[in-house]
């Protein structure tokens, strides 16, 4: 989206920003990339809406125990009285939705769907966010190293990235999760699974970041300001961290925001296939896989976690798209 076909928006932006930055009498102030991006982002209504939903979801995830104690029941509490004893389906219409159970109850054991969705948000966001951090960290370090040093270092890192990208990732992650033990490095229970998920999703994600960072570094290291720093006697470390890294922040931010929704989908897929966090810990993908057995008679229980995944991923995508457009120096929106 970099074609300057209709430059009116850019022109409009220039004129409004010029007007805003230079009220009568005061000198014109330069604005940082962050300020420009923020002004653009504020004008993108869809992205803002996405951002608000993301913020709400984060709040829900953090305050899950509080919200559940106010509006639901503990996520692992059974309510056999809400279940039709004959069919095992929730009593009442629409999966047992009532003022007491806002999103109905689970078939067979009657656990409160609302509180399981709220707790599921925790797992989803936590895994997706931490995995993105892992991927961005490894990808940035190795990408800069490959791009800056070049030569055999670059070839080696690039080969590894190519190879990882050609791996059948989902298959690998599932097999890996299935053989790893339940106790690892002093962690037990669902913490182990969370750590494993973060590790493998992040590990398979870093080549995408690495490729982008490498490409950017390759072009940036030839820039005059880097040469200037070098000729002034700047050390390797200074050039890498003070000259190159700040200029890589924008592409890395964009990629990280757009990586989170992908990670959410991956986590949900793994849980759906039984390779995610273990029951009774609630996760959205796992709820969907439980719903596979009963969706014909009780579609509500399938629709609720599905819509939860959809809304979350969509919100992150909208927000990420907005951030990308806002940070793109050639952007016309």
């Amino acid at each position, binding site marked *: *989206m*970099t*074609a*300057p*076909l*209709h430059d009116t928006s850019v022109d409009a932006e220039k004129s409004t920003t010029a007007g805003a930055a230079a009220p009568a009498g005061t000198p014109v102030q330069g604005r940082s990339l962050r300020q420009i991006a923020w002004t653009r982002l504020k004008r993108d209504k869809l992205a803002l809406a996405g951002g608000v939903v993301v913020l709400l979801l984060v709040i829900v995830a953090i305050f899950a125990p509080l919200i559940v104690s106010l509006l639901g029941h503990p996520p692992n509490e059974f309510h056999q009285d809400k279940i039709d004893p004959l069919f095992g389906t929730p009593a009442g219409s629409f999966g047992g939705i009532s003022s007491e159970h806002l999103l109905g109850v689970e078939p067979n054991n009657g656990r409160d769907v609302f509180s399981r969705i709220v707790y599921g948000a925790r797992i989803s966001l936590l895994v997706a966010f931490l995995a993105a951090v892992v991927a961005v960290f490894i990808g940035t370090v190795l990408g800069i190293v490959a791009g800056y040093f070049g030569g055999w270092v670059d070839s080696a890192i690039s080969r590894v990235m190519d*190879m990882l*990208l*050609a*791996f*059948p*990732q*989902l*298959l*690998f992650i*599932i*097999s*890996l999760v*299935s*053989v*790893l*033990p339940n106790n*690892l490095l002093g962690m037990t229970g669902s913490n182990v699974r969370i750590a494993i998920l973060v590790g493998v999703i992040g590990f398979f994600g870093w080549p995408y970041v690495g490729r982008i960072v490498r490409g950017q570094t390759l072009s940036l290291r030839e820039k005059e300001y880097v040469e200037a720093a070098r000729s002034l006697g700047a050390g390797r470390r200074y050039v890498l961290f003070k000259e190159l890294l700040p200029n890589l922040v924008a592409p890395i931010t964009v990629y990280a925001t757009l990586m989170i*929704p992908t990670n959410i*989908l991956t986590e*949900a*897929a793994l849980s*759906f*296939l*039984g390779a995610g966090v273990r029951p009774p810990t609630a996760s959205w*993908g796992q709820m*969907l*896989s439980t*719903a*596979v057995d009963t*969706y*014909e008679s009780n*579609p509500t229980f*399938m*629709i609720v*976690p*599905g819509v939860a*995944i*959809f809304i979350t*991923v*969509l919100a992150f*995508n*909208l927000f990420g*798209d907005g951030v990308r457009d806002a940070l793109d120096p050639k952007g016309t929106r």
Partner: protein
Amino acid sequence: MLAYVIRRLFAVAMMLLVVTLTTFVIFFVLPKWAGSDPAYLFAGKQTDPAAIEGIRQKLGLADPVLVQFWNFVQGLIVGREYTNGADVTNCPAPCFGYSFRTEQDVWPQLTEAIPVTLSLAAGACLLWVVGGVAAGVVSALRRGTLWDRAAMTVALAGVSLPIYFTGLLSLAVFSYQLDWVGGEYAPLEEDFAQWFQTLVLPWITLAFLYAAMYARLTRATMLEVMGEDYIRTARAKGLTERVVIGRHAMRSTWTPVLTLLGLDIGALLGGAVLTESTYNLPGLGRLAIDSIGTKDLPVILGVTLVAALFICVANLLVDLLYAVIDPRVRIG
């Protein structure tokens, strides 16, 4: 050109070696490191020490990992025999191993699953490329109109929907409520109607998901291309808009679409895991999931290798096609 292809084929072979080695490490080194014995994984519910020892002997699990790896690679090329005293199982080339769960060679299981996955991928791919590219082009040409916004919103929604959710929804509506399609998968050559019936829903849901990405990509590229000088030149020559877009602009649009297509087709052939488990299709992905569930290493290894092979070949084909599509690309 030939040198290039040979070099790339060599890289593919290397890649497959690495994938095999990694899978070996996952299933033999990791469990040992975590304190369990791979022979127990194969034995399943059996706990009789003699039976486990038998499995260990027959599969050669007592050998060092590198020896096992070498035997496996050799088996792929010339076939091999599994022996434990009088108990001999012959496995002709290409020997992907011998499944202890089903007491069958892996290769026939793979050849049975591959056509299912191929049918799924081919049909869906056709739908999504046509649909996605068309929607993207129209959106780019009518940028900012209601159509553009609607198409891009639908596309964004499509990217955000998990296949196992849309899949279940489509099954609930079209298979359960309306009873239009459904039933067990049947091979194409045996029963065309049944084949089509079981695949049409997965095709459409998969295509919807992927078309979204292609529409967004095509739109972005198209917008960029329409600003190029050669488009202005083409218009200045007096070519009709149809030729300008169809011949000149579209040609550049195909390059990124093809890149993505290579990645997607490879990934889909190797692991339509989610689609196949949602729609209960007996393809490679289902085979993988089932065998991971029973820790049936030879089958998992086989599927992973075939998957990696598909991914590599798809990428190679795409790189070769670049030269055909984009006159600026020279391969050498």
